[in-house]
């Protein structure tokens, strides 16, 4: 029998009875062929590869992370709670020492879900990785986490949630936003004033293949991770960079995904997008599982790889472009742009955002105000109005908040309650683990 070098937990939950719509890419069938491939390869018989059921995330798990308007139940279904619960289970397995690494092969995905949630955008309602990370921080005292998002689409939801968090490093490698949904993820987006350099975007040109992705891992991601020194590395394992993906333009392969995971060596991986469900997912998932488990993956290859190998070779100008990108990306982390010095602690910095929920057709307008703080992530206040909800408010006293931000947050909440200006107020107090909706 084959032995895994790393004892590994798989949370395989294909939700065979759930779809966004009949012919939507996010439908029942999505992980069917992956399961066929994993079973036929005998992955579940590898000694040290264990399969587990997902947890079901609770309302509290969601409220700890998101401002859901009007409430959690209105913007989620059972499938979302199980998908997020799958990620939580993956984290528990690793932190309880039951396994060395874990992979939550769950759907629906979550990385386009932002701090405030009014509905579904980019096939996502709630952010599985963020819910998992906040669960770890509340229940296991984990402080520093790095997320490496390898989905082809910019992980704009995860970026939004951790924009102001100095203790969570978010790195997204994706197809350049000028050529693909959601259009963001440029190198100029590098974190809020209290967390400069903690958001790192690596936009790659269409046509990038294994060479380019692995170059980005070796020369950008790994040096940054080494310096940041996270306790846990999470891979948002989207699989739509694959050359056969129907809605993207990249040339990554199953073998490339396996090598990436081998080098990145994440503690936890959580499935994100990837809609080439017959031509890519079975092989990419096999590669990721084997690489994480420390089992030889050199034989993993798409059946049609030989025919397409020449077609997907990376062009020289792309290679040159990615090499040039390195300096910018490393600079964003190691020498973050000026900005915070211009503000005094206690000042509010505001961002105005208009967000379109493509799946549900919802339009949202937000004003996010963050209190400048030298001692913590800073008090966050978020006013939001959308085509489905009147003006709502979210207030968050962040993890490890300083006394000043905490007091300010409590006062803000009291004032807002008296004003009767908001249809719903969500109050998150991470210091007291208090999560309130009024």
């Amino acid at each position: 029998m084959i032995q895994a070098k790393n004892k590994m937990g798989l949370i395989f939950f294909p939700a065979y009875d759930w779809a966004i719509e009949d012919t939507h890419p996010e439908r029942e069938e999505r992980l069917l062929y992956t399961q066929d491939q994993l079973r036929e390869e005998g992955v579940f018989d590898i000694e040290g590869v264990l399969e587990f059921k997902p947890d079901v995330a609770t309302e509290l798990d969601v409220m700890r992370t998101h401002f859901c308007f009007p409430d959690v139940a209105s913007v989620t279904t059972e499938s979302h709670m199980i998908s997020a619960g799958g990620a939580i289970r993956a984290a528990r397995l690793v932190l309880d020492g039951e396994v060395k690494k874990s992979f939550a092969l769950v759907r629906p995905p979550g990385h386009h879900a932002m701090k405030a949630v009014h509905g579904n955008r980019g096939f996502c309602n709630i952010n599985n990785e963020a819910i998992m990370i906040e669960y770890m921080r509340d229940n296991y005292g984990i402080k520093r986490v790095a997320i490496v998002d390898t989905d082809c689409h910019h992980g704009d939801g995860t970026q939004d949630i951790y924009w102001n968090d100095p203790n969570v490093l978010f790195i997204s490698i994706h197809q350049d936003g000028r050529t693909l949904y959601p259009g963001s993820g440029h190198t100029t987006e590098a974190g809020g004033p209290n967390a400069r350099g903690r958001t790192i975007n690596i936009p790659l040109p269409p046509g990038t293949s294994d060479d380019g992705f692995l170059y980005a891992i070796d020369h950008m991601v790994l040096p940054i991770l080494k310096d940041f020194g996270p306790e846990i590395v999470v891979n948002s394992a989207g699989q739509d960079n694959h050359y056969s993906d129907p809605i993207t333009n990249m040339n990554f392969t199953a073998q490339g995904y396996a090598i990436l995971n081998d080098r990145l060596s994440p503690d936890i991986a959580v499935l994100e997008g990837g809609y080439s469900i017959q031509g890519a997912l079975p092989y990419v998932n096999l590669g990721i599982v084997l690489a994480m488990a420390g089992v030889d993956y050199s034989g993993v290859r798409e059946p049609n790889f030989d025919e397409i190998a020449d077609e997907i070779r990376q062009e020289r100008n792309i290679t040159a472009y990615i090499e040039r990108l390195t300096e910018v990306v490393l600079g964003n982390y190691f020498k973050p742009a000026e900005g915070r010095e211009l503000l005094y602690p206690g000042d509010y910095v505001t961002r105005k955002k208009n967000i379109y929920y493509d799946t549900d057709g919802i339009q949202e307008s937000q004003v996010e105000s963050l209190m400048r703080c030298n001692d913590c992530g800073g008090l966050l206040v978020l006013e939001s109005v959308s085509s489905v909800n009147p003006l709502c408010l979210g207030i968050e006293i962040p993890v490890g908040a300083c006394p000043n931000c905490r007091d300010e947050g409590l006062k803000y909440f009291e004032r807002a309650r008296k004003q009767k200006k908001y249809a719903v107020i969500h109050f998150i107090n991470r210091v007291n683990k208090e999560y309130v909706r009024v």
Partner: protein
Amino acid sequence: MYIGLDVGGTHTDAVLLDRGGVVSTCKTDTEHSNLLGSIDRALREVTRGIDLGSIVSVNLSTTLSTNAIVEGNVEPVGLLVSSGPGIDPENFRAGRHFYLLEGSIDHRGSVVRDIDEKALAAAAEGCRKKGVKVFAAVTKFSTRNPDQELSMAGAVSGFSDFTTLGHRLSGQLSFPRRVASAYFNSAVWRTFSDFAGAVQKSVAAMGIGAPLNILKADGGTMPLSRAADYPVESILSGPAASIMGIVSLCHVTEDSIILDIGGTTTDIAIFASGAPLIEREGITMGGFPTLVRSLKTRSIGIGGDSVVAVKKGKVSVGPERRGPSMADGGKQPTLIDALNVRGIISYGNGARSVQGMTALASKHDMTPEELSSTAIECALNAIKNTVEEMIYEINEKPVYTIHELLEGKRIVPEKLYVMGGPAAAFVELLSDRFKIEVTVPKNFEVANAIGAGLARNTMEAELFADTSRGVLSVPNIQVSERIDARYTVERAEADAVRYLAAYMKTIGAAVDEGGIDVVESSAFNMVQGWHTAGRDIRVKCQIRPGVIMDLY
């Protein structure tokens, strides 16, 4: 009347049954060098003085294939394998004639690369020269497309006495299990079919005209005609025999625990709502996971003859057996002796039990009573822990739909059935420990033979249909049909049952369509470019393990 025969490692048990219950029984030692002789003796004994014409069936549980594999007493197999990309197939090498051939089939059953005909011919020729007579042909995803296995078999057909085709063993996916199962099947084929042939002759010579069935690990039987081609399915049928005995002897209706406490081991099984649970993937034989369907059982090294020892002040029981208990004339105290000392049983030479326990206890500053109690505790704990692990595993079994995850049934045992030599001694101890009702079935001494005798034919089949390609197949029973684009899951369910019933008829099994259950059924829309291109339909049906009649 029905005859059940269980040729075990130590004893051969035979039982003759009719509507009224057990008519006669026989227990004789198993002669390993002359299994046929043991069977003959037992058969003559139980049928003495009865009308042989009234015998309906003779069911046999035998360790022959198991022992052949465990002892390495197997025939060289020409193992022809093709895997295509994926995990290195070298990991699944078995035997000395392993040929890895180019060729590849994907998960839809499409041929990606043809079999390397030259290499295949060379492999066949190599085997022929070395005098290899039996073969196994296995490719990845052969359950979706058996063509490459068939062409491999074709290459050796001129000189092969027997070739196992991987896809015929099961519709289930798992290339490594398929390789191991096919290899074992061919490796024991000759031994088993020679033996089966001899048994059939000997039964006929005795004047018994009833059909002969072979017991399988899933608690069901297969007609001899099928067993001759699928001998691997006869492995590890021993525990299943006893479990089916319980099904017949006791009216089990709730979630239950079944313990069979023997001399060396305790076999544990779990029932859900009165039905024995089946292993999800297949049984593991000699460290190799296989596709052989099996009841969910676990065996631990705790039995009446398990040695009681003290190491660094810690009392242990088993897993070794070093001869019988002292009460039975052995040299080291065992669990039986501990039970004797505590007065829970009064077995054999009690004085020797006391003597043995006292000697061991005094070396470790204990009274013999203390030592005995601790030893009994220790045995009970081992059993309880294993039972709890099994139930945890069953309840944590992964599921793949939201409905099952949220509504899934959990096993909570309400009753415990215990059989085996020391069973009666354990009733109070077990009910104390498990806090549930404990029952010792009557006739449990021959529950194994009763189970074998009354087990009915079982079989399973998986139908796979792809309406975009217009094909339907049930690989293990050789069904392959064209279907139209409107083919539905309802039709697939009816077809699966019909095909299986027809197959059972051809192998001479007594089953009608009513006895076949659809256990899994799904239909997925396959979408290409935002349009539904067809449906992927999968139906799994089975004849559940069960008994021909109840004896309670």
